[in-house]
């Protein structure tokens, strides 16, 4: 059974891009959610191996979703990588402080993205 990656993102183009990149890798099954609330529910239901989280969702900010995920024991242990278009150092720092495992700035290089996914799916973050 291939591991599940949950992508919480409201922009359909970005969702489609990640879907294609994961298909290219052929290592994981993608679940998507377009809002924070939907994402938290999906995370609890699907128990993904990795969550990719957009920092700006229609109903919540990335740190709010992060807070809900870490508050629920069912999802607290799942690594969350925030994929954000806001490159501010402060934003990145406060997300990391709120419990994000990683931070990937948009736009990302697809090779960088693939390396990160491989790192997380082979049990542990990339070196």
């Amino acid at each position, binding site marked *: 059974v291939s591991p599940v990656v949950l992508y919480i993102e409201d922009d359909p183009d970005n969702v489609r891009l990640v879907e294609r990149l994961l298909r290219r890798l052929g290592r994981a099954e993608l679940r998507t959610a377009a809002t924070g609330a939907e994402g938290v529910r999906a995370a609890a239901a699907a128990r993904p191996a990795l969550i990719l989280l957009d920092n700006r969702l229609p109903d919540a900010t990335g740190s709010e979703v992060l807070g809900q995920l870490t508050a629920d024991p069912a999802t607290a242990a799942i690594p969350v990588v925030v994929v954000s278009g*806001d490159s501010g150092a402060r934003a990145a720092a406060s997300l990391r402080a709120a419990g994000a495992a990683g931070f990937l700035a948009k*736009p990302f290089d697809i090779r960088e993205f693939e390396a990160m996914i491989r790192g997380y799916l082979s049990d542990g973050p990339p070196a």
Partner: protein
Amino acid sequence: MESSATAAALPSEGRRRRPVGRWWLRLPVRAKGIVVVALPLAALLIVTTASLILQHTEQGQRTMTHAATGLNTTASQVLLDAVNAETGVRGYIATANPAFLTPYLQALARTGTDRRALSTAAARAGVARPARQVIASSVTVMADLAQLRALVASGETAARLAPRMLQGKSATDVLRQRVASLTRGPMRLLSEGRSSINGLETDIDRVSIGGLILGLLAGVAGSALFTTGLTRRIAVSSASASQLGEGRPLPPVPPGGDELSRLDAALAQAGQLLASRAAELVTARDQAVRANQAKDAFLSNTSHELRTPLNSILGFTQLLQLSELGAEDQDSVERILGAGRHLLALINELIDVARIESGELSLSLEPVPLVPLADEAAQLLRPLAAERTVRIIQSCASPALVVRADRQRLSQVLVNLISNAIKYNLRGGTITISCHATAGSQVRLAVADTGPGLTADELERIFLPFERLGAERHGTEGTGIGLPLARGLAEAMGGRLTAESTPGKGSVFTVSLPREEDADLRPPAAAAAAPAPAAARHPGAPRLSVLYIEDNPASVEVVTRYLRGRGDARLRTASSGQAGLAAAVREVPDIILLDLHLGDLRGEEVLRELRTEPATAAVPVIILSAEASSGMIRRLIAAGAAGYLTKPVQLAELGALLDETAAARPPGAGQ
């Protein structure tokens, strides 16, 4: 609520004031003083006048009494003379012995004097005419007696003389009656005068005592009016002034026209002015805070909104690039990628510029050695330079040159300057990177090119955004904000970026930054003085990460040197509250040293933020400040500070605190 209640109470008090009260309030303070002094003075004047008039009357009475007494005495003496003379003559008649004549002779001798005395006294008493009658009677009596004596001497017997003696007696009786009638009036006057004088004396006593009491009362009342009225109002004014000092609203001014009322009015005006200024300030501050938040939010939003579609563009294009494409399609894809990356660079630089302008750029200032930085930048750009047959000469070689900067941002500035120099250089030109220390504690890092150079006018314009001089001519690519951004970054790090140029020869761009003294070359006294800071004391001790939020370079220097000497701690410094907060969240240090007086935020605010931010809530914060009141220390400890060190910092105390922190740190924490 309270002030509006006072406001309601005061005007009604004003309405209750009587006309006298209003007149008194309008009277200038000097006039009030005069009135207060005049009251007892007037009382004194009245009493003195009354007393003088009474005394004058008494004096008149006394003179009249004297005159009456004198008249009485002299008239009685004249009568006595006549009676004595008569007695002497009668004895002589009865005995014919001249020895009995002695009283007569004595009376005869003095009666002239006594008559004159009577005449004088009568003139003084205003009864001259009846006195003259008395004197005439006295003369008649004495003449009769002289005849009788002569008859006795001539040998007449007593029996024959009896009728004449009877005649003489009747003359004496007339004299006696006249004296009585003369003295009756003055005697009555005398007794009346005595009782009048007694009455006047009683009146004078009464007036004196009454005047004394009246004067005292007037004085006391005047002083009371003056002092209580004035002091109460001064107290009100003083209360108003202190209320003004505390910035609280003032009660409305009671009516009145004197100096105190004007003072109250001026205070009230100042209070209103202050209140309106305070309100304006609050509004302005709120607006500024909102504007800053809005700007920050706008920057974050813009960044996100631009990057999200760009992510799709670049991502899908990269995917296309990986697929089987014809040569022309492959070229198209690369052009899309190139344009997308250019757009990304532009967005990044624009957002950096905006962050610098809004003060949102977070920097982590630390000692940065220039040689490796210059080496790296030269290495990075040599391929690009080679494409344009430009040679990069990296001549910055002094390892002692260390600046205080954000390493990544300084690198960005240098790369920017070098790529600019490549773009605007001539083919086959050279770029020289050099560095040197100045006489002041500054280090200059220069990038010189051999390009066409710039005119003075162009030199002014190159630091303006989108002024891509000659870009059209050279077909040079670039964002157009590289130089403005480089200058903004240099200034944000406390440095400067300047440009000089000679048209036809080339341009030199120079970054000046504060120099970081190298401890290896000059062992600092502070570190040497610290108790056993040597690494031997902490052999293999876990490295402790310390964040020092401080805007005073001298304080930073002392702690930097001490920690360098100690050898087991890694120091990060931030020169503002905002930068400190950003660094604290990013680094999550083992301990934070916090200065109370920062340029942008108060230390207490930074402390509060650190306590509420989940990432840093558990990090011990030590306050370093010269302000060491016990109340302040208690407040800070209550707000979550782990400790307090007073400046100048005792390095032994700081060391002990760091040892404690290191010992309390969970094993495996940090790096």
